[in-house]
């Protein structure tokens, strides 16, 4: 039983080609990849399967978009690729979900695709969606660096530090995850003094508190215990003094990339 031998060989060959193309595409479009990574054919002799262009370097320019259609996020720029998630319209706090767009891929058969960061557990998941699944692209030119070593958060705009403040990060049992994330939502906090007057929702998820309401989203927010800042008092969130979060809230834009080291 099973497929004829010829058919099996063809399927295997197609699979290998797809895997090779995916590796090439992923290598080119990964965030933080080298600056020379844009728009290179995927194989030396073979015709290019996908022309990939970087759209965000997550430092001086970052592009983001709201979802336009309910679409699967796939592991490769192809409708046949394995789904790794779905686009969402709302964040766990019922705000408009947005996606940082890292790269665009144009394939002869599958059309235009965009590579996005998926704000879900586990952190750092990337995937591809058809161009039509996202709306128009917005641009931000700033990024936030949160250094857990020096317990400082610094907002850069066009390479220049425009804001810096001490922070409180996760304690050893509930660490703040390290990696590349972005600003998902900006909230005025009410209902609990522990969040202070303003809160910024990020695409990061706390690695240990998966049962938390909303899935354990890491936020940047004020505090009712300013004496613990700088320090490591939190459950994964990044705490700031209320005056600092008020200033940062007014400076930071939606889609701003956040690097936590």
């Amino acid at each position, binding site marked *: 039983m099973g497929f004829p031998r010829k058919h099996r060989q063809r399927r295997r060959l197609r699979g290998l080609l797809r895997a090779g193309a995916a590796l090439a595409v992923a290598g080119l479009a990964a965030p933080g990849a080298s600056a*020379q990574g844009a728009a290179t054919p995927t194989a030396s002799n073979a015709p290019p399967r996908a022309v990939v*262009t970087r759209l965000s370097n997550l430092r001086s320019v970052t592009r983001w978009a709201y979802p336009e259609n309910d679409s699967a996020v796939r592991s490769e720029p192809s409708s046949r690729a394995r789904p790794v998630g779905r686009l969402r319209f709302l964040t766990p706090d019922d705000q408009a979900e947005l996606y940082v767009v890292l790269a665009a891929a144009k394939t002869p058969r599958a059309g235009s695709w965009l590579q996005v960061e998926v704000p879900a557990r586990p952190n750092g998941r990337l995937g591809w969606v058809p161009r039509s699944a996202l709306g128009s692209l917005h641009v931000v030119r700033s990024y936030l660096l949160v250094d857990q070593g020096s317990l400082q958060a610094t907002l850069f705009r066009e390479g220049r530090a425009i804001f810096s403040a001490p922070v409180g990060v996760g304690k050893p049992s509930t660490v703040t995850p390290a990696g590349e994330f972005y600003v998902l939502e900006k909230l005025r906090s009410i209902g609990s003094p522990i969040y202070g007057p303003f809160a910024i929702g990020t695409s990061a998820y*706390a690695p240990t508190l998966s049962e938390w309401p909303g899935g354990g989203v*890491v936020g940047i927010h004020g505090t009712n215990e300013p004496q613990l800042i700088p320090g490591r008092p939190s*459950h994964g969130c990044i705490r700031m003094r209320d005056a600092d979060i008020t200033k940062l809230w007014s400076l930071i834009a*939606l889609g701003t990339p956040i690097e936590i080291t």
Partner: protein
Amino acid sequence: MRRNRLLALAILAILSLAVLAPAGFANEGAAGRRAAKHAERDAKRQAAAQRQAERGAHRQQRGAERKAAAERGAERKAERKLLLGHKSDTNADVKIDCTSITIEYHDFNVVPGSPNFVWQGVHIKSPPPPLEPVNFPPKLFSFEGASATSVIPVAAPVGRSTVDIRSHWDTNGVKGGFDIHQTVTCPPHPALTIEKLQSLGGPFTTETLSGMVGQSIMYEMIVTNTGNTPLTFTGFSDALCDPGTISGEDTEPIEPLGTITIVCVHKITPADATAGKVLNVATITGTPEEGEGEPITERSNPVEVAPVTEEEHKKEPEPEDGNKEPPKPPPAKTTPNGGVAGISASSGASSTSTSKSGVLGFTSATIPSLRGPQGCVRSSFTASVKSANVASVSFYLDGHLLRRLSATAAHKGLLSIHINASKLKVGAHRIQARITMKAAKGAKPAKATRSMTVVRCHSAVIAPHFTG
């Protein structure tokens, strides 16, 4: 003889008197006894009736007492209905008023390095329609040590409302919880916030931007009724709004937690460049209905644009890396309701054109796109189609026809529909515009469907779900 007869008669009379007189006396005594008996019976009856009345009154009193006790019990039960076991009634004290709920947690176990987690939720139900229940989503409250105080600001509506507060915990060996339903009667409390954002073609932001002389700054003012009584927003003022560019003012009363978005434009002038910055705040007044309190005026946060020369502007580093010119993003939408309070637009990209391009004289490129706001919508917004060469447009929301507009309904070159987002459910909604173009004589009109997704969001003034 005659003397004898007289004598006999006299004797008879005496005898009669002797016999009859005691009988007469005896008859009088029986009547008295009967009367006494009757009187005694009457007295007994009266006493019984009195006792019965007393018993009735006593019963009534006991009934009233029982009723009062039951009412007190029900009240107590309503005040504190314990859900979960153990020490639940001894670990938390709750105080409710119209503007805040204070929960004091105490006597928790202290385990170093292990915080105590408490789930809290508040639901305010207002029986008289059309007020909707207000939900503060359940959230996790955590604290170190044995005790903590959680203050939840609420805006209970004017009049009588039922406040339902729930909380439960199972942490560090302490288990418990409560579910309290309490009625509160609240006076009017007018309050508002105004947030000012700006854009130079990109997303709306509060951060300082750099712009050239001649460039237009679009300002967006998000005004939210944060009190518990409807407010009419009037007296909007912003010295930087160029004359005739202000739109979005609403003369209708805005319900509590409702928002309006006012937009205006300012073109950067040489005078701004000389001053070195374009900085201003907006003010607005919220007037409650008569007898619902005094009008209040609030100022927005300041926003700033730093004017730069053309040379400085050109020096901005090219963001893209690599040797290939990246595709330029589509120009930012500049619809009146765009930006933060808007809807994800990009209608052109996702539209499904059914036009028979070429044949009928209109290619899909010439059929106009559907434009609308981006991001979240919370109040009303406008979706529009450019009216040039358009015969008619039918607007649909989630498949339901909203309105069909003919070319004669065009205003300022647009066929627009105003949609009240506050009536929409939180989530994504699809708006479609079925466009029929004007046709040449004898030709069939070209048709196309443009669509876009709008996202109705929850208020951004909430208790976040973050890990803390």
